């Protein structure tokens, strides 16, 4: 049974009782979850689904406030009608997870989801301006506000973003939105190996052409993008967005430089929209399997070294969402968590999150990157301050969290 409060006051009441009785709650939104994070025993589900609707949307101010349980689709429709968007490109994970629920806006921020525009436009946490949430003692807390610049007190907004339902129950979120770009074009360079592609992307991003997305799609996955329409060989894709007049000028410039690396082809607005959505949603690994899927972040220039090192010892397939700062890795059989994390450390640090795996694998694999002892202890103290009774999915995010 899932608890579905319909007001914030009810939510606070339920949580206060749960805290008093020591009942563990698994917080969720549309409950499209199909297992993310470490499994937690003996929890009751509590969903924000009953708290739904856009509270305030001022397109002129580019700020939207919605109750946490509002379907993402409803938000996107409202924004689309005003030619605005969430700049951080929240992914739709239903493809890779094989689930079918209705993702909520609270879930997006609770998971700090972001896509290929991460390096330029930030993650969900960078767009989030204010929140209301219920803490583990059943108190309603407000943090942040509805203005872009705000250093009034500690930034609990960022703390709650990405806390995966382990610090508080979000009831309302206020976030910044941006205008939809007038024009989009994608430059694809074909036939580069991973190392050369890395160099090509670094040099593209050093040019004053404002690349807003950069991805390398090796031969093994390339065919799964754009309905198989990408040219022969691995594809290295660079996205340009903005005013039409400017995009075409920048595209010329970028293409001219990139031909030094390999054959260049250009893709128009509609093709670009589809391609980048597939990159965002990790389309090649929406494969109906339970093969272990990792979301890895390391210094972008080292990503291909990590993959090359793993290849020598494990069955791994990967592609690179560079501007998202991500490598998506699908393991053939074993999740190879230890090996992967050892190499990440050796390369100077980063993190790997197990996004998908079978029940058996999840039961024995730590989903979130383990932290150093000092950071883990500090994080546990932080959790204790928000959730003193430890009722919000303890252990879900590794260790005591």
């Amino acid at each position, binding site marked *: 049974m899932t608890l579905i409060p319909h007001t914030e006051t009810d939510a606070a009441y339920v949580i206060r009782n749960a805290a008093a009785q020591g009942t563990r709650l698994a917080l969720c939104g549309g409950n499209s979850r199909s297992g993310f994070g470490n499994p937690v025993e003996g929890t009751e589900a509590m969903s924000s689904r009953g708290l739904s609707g856009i509270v305030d949307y*001022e*397109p*002129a*101010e580019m700020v939207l406030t919605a109750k946490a349980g509002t379907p993402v689709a409803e938000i996107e429709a409202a924004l689309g009608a005003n*030619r605005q968007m969430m700049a951080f490109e929240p992914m739709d994970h239903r493809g890779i997870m094989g689930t079918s629920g209705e993702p909520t806006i609270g879930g997006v921020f609770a998971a700090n989801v972001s896509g290929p525009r*991460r*390096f330029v436009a*930030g*993650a969900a*946490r*960078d767009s989030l301006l204010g929140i209301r949430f219920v803490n583990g003692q059943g108190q309603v*807390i*407000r943090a942040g*506000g*509805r*203005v*872009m*610049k*705000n*250093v*009034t*007190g500690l*930034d*609990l*907004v*960022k*703390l709650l*973003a990405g*806390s995966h339902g382990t610090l508080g129950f979000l009831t309302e979120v206020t976030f910044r939105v*941006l*205008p939809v770009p007038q024009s989009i074009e994608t430059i694809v360079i074909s036939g580069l190996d991973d190392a050369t592609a890395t160099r090509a992307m670094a040099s593209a991003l*050093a040019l*004053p052409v*404002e690349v807003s997305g950069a991805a390398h799609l090796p031969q093994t996955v390339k065919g799964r993008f754009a309905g198989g329409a990408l040219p022969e060989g691995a594809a290295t894709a660079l996205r340009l967005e903005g*005013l039409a*007049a*400017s995009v075409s000028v*920048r595209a010329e410039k970028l293409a001219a430089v990139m031909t030094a690396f390999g054959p260049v082809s250009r893709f128009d607005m509609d093709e670009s929209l589809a391609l980048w959505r597939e990159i965002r949603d990790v389309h090649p690994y929406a494969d109906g399997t339970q093969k272990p899927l990792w979301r890895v*972040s*390391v*210094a*972008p*220039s080292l990503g291909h070294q990590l993959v090359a090192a793993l290849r020598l010892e494990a069955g791994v397939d990967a592609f690179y969402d560079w501007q998202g*700062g991500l490598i998506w890795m699908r393991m053939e059989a074993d999740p190879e968590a230890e090996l992967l994390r050892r190499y990440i450390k050796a390369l*100077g*640090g*980063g*993190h790997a999150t197990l996004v998908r795996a079978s029940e058996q694998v999840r039961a024995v694999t730590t989903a*979130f990157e*383990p*932290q*150093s002892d*000092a*950071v883990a202890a*500090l*994080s546990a103290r932080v*959790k204790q*301050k*928000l959730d003193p009774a430890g009722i919000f999915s303890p252990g879900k995010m590794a260790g005591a*969290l």
Partner: protein
Amino acid sequence: MSEAIEFLPPRPAVLSRRSAIIADLADLLPAECVIHEARELVPFETDAFISYRRLPLAVVLPKTTAQAAAVMKYCHRYGIPVVPRGAGTSLSGGAIPQEDAIVLGLSKMSRILEVDYANRTATVQAGVTNLSISEAVGVDGFFYAPDPSSQLACTIGGNIGMNSGGAHCLKYGVTTNNLLGVKMVLVDGTVVDFGGKHLDSAGYDLLGLVCGSEGQLGIVTEATVRLIAKPEGARPVLFGFETSEEAGACVTDIIASGIIPVAIEFMDKPAIEICEAFAHAGYPLDVGALLIVEVEGSEAEMDATLAGIVEIARRHGVKTVRESQSATEAALIWKGRKSAFGATGRIADYICMDGTVPLGKLSYVLKKTSEITDSFGLRVANVFHAGDGNMHPLILFNANDPEDAARAEAAGNEILKLCVDAGGCLTGEHGVGIEKRDLMRHQYSDADLAQQMAVRSAFDEGWILNPSKVFPLDGRPAA
């Protein structure tokens, strides 16, 4: 000088051990890193919020993270307050010490450690100045985006402390959006890393929490920041209007149209006159308000963006539109804007407010602000980051007249409450410090504040880090 804002009473147990503490610090650090002579402590007694001063017990200037850690471990053990300090340009009193505190200054840690163009990052020590990062990478076509007007002096550690912004943050975001990682000394001397060259965190976003925490969670000793490729070109354009209301409404409409320039800065008549007299930037003097709008990109892009903006400005009855014709002219336009505070300081004492309001409320808040200062018989000059609603009314007064000073402080408080009531906040980029500490309850409920303070306690149970700041002195958790 008025002394309306209280500090925590000094801890007697610390004061009575003064000489022992100084001797111990001298054991921990090289001789040139410990300052304790009263005369030498004077430069550290205040920051840019000069109405308040306190001599610290001593100042330490570590050269390494390990030295900073040794100091923290010692101070933690004996419950000695520590006030982190960068360049001391805080406008909210964030870096002002107290009699029982050690000032931990980062000025001897000012090296750029690594520039990594492949990953577009720079890793620097916390005492490095904001501008020196952009200077170091400029020749290679990169820059560090947040550009506070104080960028020549202020440090990246202070920028992190205050989550500082600047004129160009409308497009590129403030410090928190450009910070990828920090090395930080925790209160007990433990050294931790949050973030790095990768993006986002595996666990809680402690990096996000540290940014803007005003030296209350730990000592930042190193930072990794995001570098951005410099645009092909940039062009500031001056738009003069008859009234502040027209200019304010024009800002709202520019943003609403979906055009996001790199910067939209606002000056009212008093600010224009002050800045022009100082910088000779060529600002029109026959207007009631001025917008500096900067666009960037290729020539084609700048032309297209500008055309859109000019059309909107015309709808709001713009009187003059003047594009900068050369790099020198552009630099002069920015020099005028960035010297606004300094230029104001030459004609009067001033306090600078920093409230942020929703864009739709700009004109209303501007009008109310002058009503408030009028009612106190004070003059005000407005110069601020209009594109993100971050207001900076400069309230002019005479610091030698205690009553005038008290009136200025009272007027400032009214203006900040106005910002909060209009749906905004007390501070957009200067921080709470001591200045806005006692107004925090106007913005937050007791439960909101208690939650923030509880999280603060998770980092510093004994509240020794910058203890007189940010949170009202009453109602704090028992240590």
